C-alpha cells in the first residue's frame, strides 16, 4: 500500500485502529525542486522564553519618562549615553547590545510594538506556563472543554494543502513552541538541528537501515505508546530524507554567531532555502526570566539580559542578511513573542520580577519600520508595578494574518467567537 501522506501529517497518528501504514521510501528527490509555488510566505516566530523585560529593551528617553525609569531602577537603568538611538524617534532608544536591530530599524525594516500583552483578565497572569500557553494558543480563559489545544499558527496551517511529494510538514518547530504550530488536524515537524535530523547507523549500515524501515512498517497494535513511537520514526525518516537532499546545496552567505540561537536561525535559513513547503518556523531562546543579575546599567559589565539581547539581535540580524543575500528575504516575516514583561521596579537582587506588558519586534521586507502603540506611562504602573497594555497580543497576530498572509484573522484567533474583532496594526 502506498504511503498515505495525508493521514500521516494529520495529528501524526493514524486515528482508526486497523489502518495500515505501509511506507515505502520515495525515490531520492531530484536536485530540482519541481513544486509549483516556490514563493509562499513564511512566518518566523522567535520565542523569548521566560518573560522579556521590555522596559530595558526599548527604553523611553523623553525626559519625564526617563527620570521615572531611573527612579524605578537605580541600578539596572541604562545611562542614556550607552543607549542606541533610533532615527526619527527622539523618545525611545534601544538597549546597548542590540546594534544589529538598531541598523535594521534605521533602514526601515524593523517595527517596534509597544505594550504588548494578554488582557488583564486572562487566566494565570505572571505565570510562565499560562503565559506561554496563551501566547501560543490565544486561549486566555483556559477553555479546555472546547477540545484539544491548538496554536494560532497551527490553525492557520490547517488551511494549507497537504504536503506534496517533496515537502515536509508546513510547520517546523526548531525549539520555539510545538503547540504554537500544532493545528486541529496537523502537527509540526520537530527538528533540533538539521545535521542531527537523520538516522545514525555507524556499522552494517545497509542491512540495518533496511531492517529498521521494514520493522517500522509493522503496525503496532498493542499500545498507544509503541504505535506513536513507530509513526514518529516513520515521519522522521521520511522528512529527514527530503530535508537533507533539499538543503544539501545551501551555503551561508554570512557568519552566523556561534550561539545556540545562531544555529537555529541558520537552520531556519536552510529550511527556507530548501523550499520544502515550510510556512511557519518557530525558534526559541530561554533564560529571559531575569530575577537576578539582569544587567549593570552604568558599567561595561554585561549581565544576563545584555547577553540575551545581543544574542537575539546578532542571530536574527544575520539570518535576515543571509536571506537578503540569497534573494529570499521577501519570503519572511519575523516576529518576536514573550509570555510577559517584567515589573517596572527592580528587586533587591539586581533583577526584576514577573510583570505584564512587553515590547515585540517585527522584521521583514514588507514591514513598515517604526514604533507602534503608546509606550505604557511609567507614572501609571498597573498590577503592582507593571507596565500597562497598549496592544492586545492578538491584534499583533491579526496584523500578521490579515496584512501579511492575507487571511481573515478572526476565525483563527478566536475560533469560539468570544471576542470582538481584533484590529490589525499598521506595521506590515
Amino acid at each position, binding site marked *: 500500500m502506498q504511503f498515505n501522506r495525508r493521514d500521516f501529517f494529520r495529528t501524526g497518528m493514524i486515528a482508526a485502529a486497523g489502518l495500515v501504514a505501509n511506507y515505502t521510501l520515495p525515490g531520492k528527490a531530484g536536485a530540482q525542486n519541481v513544486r509549483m509555488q516556490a514563493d509562499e510566505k513564511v512566518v518566523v516566530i522567535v520565542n523569548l*522564553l*521566560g518573560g522579556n523585560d521590555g522596559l530595558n529593551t526599548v527604553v523611553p528617553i523623553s525626559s519625564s519618562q526617563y527620570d521615572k525609569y531611573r527612579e524605578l531602577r537605580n541600578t539596572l537603568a541604562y545611562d542614556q549615553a550607552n543607549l542606541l538611538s533610533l532615527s526619527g524617534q527622539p523618545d525611545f532608544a534601544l538597549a546597548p547590545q542590540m546594534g544589529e536591530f538598531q541598523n535594521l530599524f534605521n533602514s526601515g525594516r524593523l517595527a517596534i510594538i509597544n505594550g504588548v500583552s494578554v488582557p488583564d483578565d486572562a487566566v*494565570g497572569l*505572571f*505565570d*510562565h*506556563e*499560562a503565559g506561554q500557553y496563551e501566547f501560543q494558543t490565544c486561549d486566555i480563559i483556559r477553555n479546555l472543554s472546547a477540545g484539544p489545544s491548538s496554536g494560532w499558527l497551527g490553525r492557520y496551517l490547517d488551511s494549507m494543502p497537504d504536503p506534496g511529494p517533496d515537502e515536509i510538514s508546513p510547520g517546523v*518547530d526548531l525549539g520555539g513552541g*510545538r503547540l504554537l504550530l500544532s493545528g486541529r488536524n496537523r502537527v509540526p*515537524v*520537530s*527538528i*533540533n538541528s538539521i545535521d*542531527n*535530523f*537523520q*538516522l*545514525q*547507523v*555507524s*556499522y*552494517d549500515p545497509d*542491512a*540495518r537501515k533496511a*531492517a*529498521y524501515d*521494514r*520493522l517500522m512498517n*509493522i503496525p*503496532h*497494535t*498493542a*499500545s*498507544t*505508546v*509503541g*504505535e*506513536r*513511537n*513507530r509513526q*514518529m*520514526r516513520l*515521519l*522522521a525518516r521520511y*522528512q*529527514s530524507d527530503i530535508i537533507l537532499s533539499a538543503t544539501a546545496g545551501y551555503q551561508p552567505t554570512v557568519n552566523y554567531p556561534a550561539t545556540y540561537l545562531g544555529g537555529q536561525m541558520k537552520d531556519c535559513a536552510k529550511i527556507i532555502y530548501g523550499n520544502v513547503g515550510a510556512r511557519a518556523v518557530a525558534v526559541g531562546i*530561554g533564560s529571559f*526570566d531575569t*530575577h*537576578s543579575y539582569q544587567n549593570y546599567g552604568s558599567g561595561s559589565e554585561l549581565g544576563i539580559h545584555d547577553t540575551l539581547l545581543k544574542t537575539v539581535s546578532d542571530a536574527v540580524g544575520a539570518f535576515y542578511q543571509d536571506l537578503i543575500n540569497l534573494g529570499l528575504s521577501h519570503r519572511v516575516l519575523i516576529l518576536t513573542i514573550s509570555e510577559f514583561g517584567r515589573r517596572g*521596579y*527592580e*528587586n*533587591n*537582587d539586581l*533583577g526584576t*520580577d*514577573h510583570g505584564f506588558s512587553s515590547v515585540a519586534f517585527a522584521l521583514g521586507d514588507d514591514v513598515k519600520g517604526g514604533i507602534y502603540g503608546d509606550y505604557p506611562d511609567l507614572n501609571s504602573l498597573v498590577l*503592582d508595578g507593571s507596565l500597562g497594555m497598549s496592544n492586545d497580543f492578538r491584534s499583533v497576530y491579526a496584523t500578521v494574518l490579515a496584512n501579511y498572509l492575507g487571511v481573515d484573522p478572526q476565525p483563527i484567533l478566536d475560533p469560539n467567537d468570544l471576542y470582538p474583532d481584533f484590529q490589525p496594526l499598521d506595521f506590515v
Partner: protein
Amino acid sequence: MKKRMVIATVLLLICSLVATAVPDGPRIKMQRGTRDRTQRMAAPTRVEFTEETVALVESAPVDAVALSSQVLAGHLLRRIGFGPTQGDMRWLTPRGRTGRVRWINWQLWPEYIDDSYAESLLPAINPDNGDTDYIRRWYVRMTYSQRQLQEKMTLIWHEHFSVSDEKVGDQRYLGAHEDLLRRNSLGNFRNFLVDVTVDSAMLRWLDNDYNNGNDVKPPNENFSREFLQLFATGTTLLNLDGTPVRDASGNPVPSYTETDVRELARSLTGWHTNYCDPYPYCDPGPATFEPGYHDDRAKTIMGEDVPAGMGEDETAYAIDLVLRQRTDTVAAFISKILLQKLVSENPPPAYVYRVARRFKNTNWNIREAVKLILTDAAFESGAMVRTMYKEPVEQYVGAVRALNSWTQGDALYNWTYEAGQLVYYPPSVFSFYRPGNKASLVNTSRVFFRDKMADEYSSGWWDTAFDAPAHIRQGGLTTPDRAVTYFVSRLLAAPASTGVRSELIRYMGGQVTEEKVRGLVWLIMCSPDFQRN
C-alpha cells in the same frame, strides 16, 4: 520407609520455604542482622478489593500480550527502578505476586539494603571536574545500586524540585542537594519541604539566597512563587481525588493569590549560602540564617496570621501554615504527581484519592504513599502495564542494566545531554517534562536521538558497552532464533509483538556474528516494544 519419605518431604518443604524467604538479588545476599524484621518480613499486603478497585481492574482494556509473571516482573522493575537485570528477573518471575510484594517491601527500606558493591563502583569525585563527576556518579548509582526504588524516587524528586547547576554553579552545593533528595526520598514530605527551602543549591536556583526582607525594594518572589506553584500546592485548589475544586460558575479556584506569594516571600527571607576558598577544595557547609535579612514583621498568608518576631522559626512555621491551609490540595497534588511518575499519566481519581488519603493521614509519609501506590491492585492492571513512555534516563540506564553492561557514566552523560535529559540540567523550573506529559519527550527530532544512542551503545565503541561475545557464549546463542529470543527477553522482559520477531531473525542473515548481534540489540532498542515503560 514411609517415615523417611515423610521426613524427606518435610525437609524439602522447609528448605524451599527458607529458599523463598529472602530475595537474594543478582549479586549480594542481604544482611540479616540489622534490619527491623517485623517490617521486612511482613506478610504480603492484603489489597482491599473495594468496588472501585474491582471496577478499575475489570474495565481496563486487555492488552494484546497477556500479563504473565514475566511481564509483571519487568513492569515492576521498570517502574520502581531503572529496569530489570537478568538476576532480578530470575528471582521474580517464578515467584509471582508473592515475590513482587516481597520485593516491594524490601525496596521500601533502602536503609537496610547493603549497597557496598555499587558504592565500590562509583567513580571518584575529582574537584577539578566541576559537576561532571557528580552527574556520572549518579548514573553509575542508578545502574548498579541495589536500592533501585530509592534511586528512582531520588530522580522523581529531582524532576519535582528541578534545580539546575547551570545557575547554581557550585558542585559542592549540588552534592549536598543530592544527599538531601536521596535522604528524604521515602521520608516525610513536610520535612523535605523545610530541608529543601534552606538548601544552598535551592537558595541559589530560585533566588532566595541573601534575599533581603528589610530592604526598601521588595524581596525576590521567585522561590515563594515556585514553592507554591510547583512544589507544594499547584495553581488550583484540589479535592482529595485530584479533581479541581470549582466555584459557582464552574471555574477552578486558585490555590494562592499574588498577595500570598509576596507574603510568603517575606516570611522566607533571611537565609544565605556560605562559601569557602580555595574553591573547590573545601566544604562550604550548610546555609545560614541571618536575622538582619529576615523580614520579622507580622504577615498574613492564606488568611492565617503569622506573628511578628519569629526569626528563624518562621521558615518552618510558614511551610506548616501552607500545609495546614491547603492540606487536601497538597495531598492530592503530590499524590497525583507520584502516580503520574510511577503508574499512569492519567490516574483514575479513585486511585489518587486512596493515595492522597493515606499521605494525609500519615502526616506526609512518602514511604506509606508509595507503598500504597505499588501494592494497589490498579498498579498491575492492564491499563497501567507497559503503557507509559520511557524518559531518556529510564531508556538508557535500562538498556545498560538489561545487558549487564559496564559503565562509568561518561557515555550516559553525553547521551542524556543530547536527549535533553541531563540530570541537574533541567531546561527550566518546569523540569524535563510536565507531570502527565511524557509524550512531549517524543517528537521527530527526539526519536532520532534515542536511536542514535542505541547505535552508539550497541556499537561497543564507547565506555558504556555490553560484552557481545560473552553474551553469545553464555547464552549459547548458536542460531539467530536463539539470539533473538535471548535479547528480546533481556531487553523487553516480554514477548516481542506480532511480526517483529521474524524481522529480527531476518536481519541476522542466517548467522550469529558479533556485528549482527550488535545490530540486533540496536533494532530491538529502536522497536516500538522497547519504547514502552
